[in-house]
């Protein structure tokens, strides 16, 4: 942790909202990436980021610096996103028309058949990820989306490196199997 970050955390622990805003400016995109990776829905991911920063402000006094600050934040984001998913499972889900999970890059991609393919593929990826246990999902998102090392994932999830490797291995195996029609033929979004 660098000196600036330590000072920011210390100010935030004393209730300084400007310090929290600086932390927000520094981390909101990373946290959004993690939240989006879990829920794959724009509005829900924004709500999660918002909730995480409110929680952080209330609980930052508990941060003692034993782990790195960003792994503490990532863990909080992942837990909030997974809790959110559990709650949403109980509530009726949105239709695919309301999903805004991707952007089409060129005119060819805007053809109706391509849009349908895109939506279908995105829905399949979300479905496959939802088949994983929360631990496997967390490991896969931290690794594939945020590019964390095994050591960082272990810190963010509170387990050993061996456990991280096992979760990644079985998580990948399962998603590859569920998406074999897409990963096999090299189709990408």
């Amino acid at each position, binding site marked *: 942790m660098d000196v600036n970050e330590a000072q920011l955390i210390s100010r935030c622990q004393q209730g300084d909202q400007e310090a929290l805003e600086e932390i927000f400016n520094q981390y909101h*995109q990373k946290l959004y990436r993690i939240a989006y990776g879990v829920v794959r829905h*724009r509005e829900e991911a924004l709500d999660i980021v918002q909730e995480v920063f409110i929680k952080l402000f209330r609980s930052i006094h508990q941060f003692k610096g034993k782990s790195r600050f960003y792994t503490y934040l990532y863990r909080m984001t992942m837990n909030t996103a997974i809790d959110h998913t559990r709650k949403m499972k109980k509530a009726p889900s949105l239709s695919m028309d309301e999903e805004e999970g991707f952007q089409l890059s060129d005119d060819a991609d805007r053809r109706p058949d391509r849009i349908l393919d895109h939506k279908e593929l995105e829905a399949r990826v979300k479905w496959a990820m939802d088949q994983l246990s929360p631990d496997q999902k967390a490991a896969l998102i931290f690794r*594939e989306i945020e590019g964390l090392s095994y050591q960082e994932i272990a810190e963010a999830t509170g387990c050993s490196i061996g456990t991280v490797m096992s979760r990644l291995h079985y998580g990948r195996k399962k998603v590859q199997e569920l998406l074999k029609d897409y990963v096999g033929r*090299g*189709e990408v979004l």
Partner: protein
Amino acid sequence: MKRECSSISRLLEKYFDQEVTPEERSLVEGHLPDCSACRMALDTMQNLRILIKNPVEEAVEKETFPWVWEKIEKGIQRKERPGLWNFLKSWLDVTPLLKRKILIPAVAAVVIVILITAPLLYKKMSSYPGPSVVEYVESETYNVMVYELETPQVTVIWLFEDPEEESSTS
């Protein structure tokens, strides 16, 4: 798949995640040119990564994070001003008492106070039970009923001359 694949495949995922030692990297990279199965396994992992990551990157790129910070500020202020229900809950919350281990003595003290004061209160508040009949005498001409009131000490005698006509003396 070649014979050495079984030993290399254990390293393949670590290699893909860039978690191998330099020696392990050399081993894998020496093996890959001659093994299509391991190359395909790597391609599959790479395709999966793209499938998972690309939509997220696209979503982040187009996101402007509108009003998020303002909402956070409002959320913090809302939580700092607890509503009436939260205020009541904080008063009714017994958790701090449990934590301080004073709940049991406090409950015991309340029970003792109730046990001591309840009979006194009951005695004071108990309602007058009503007159009690001491005697009732029937005859051909008169029927007499004698009542006794508790406070003040009064005796009431009812004289029934006729079922339709009643008189009283005290």
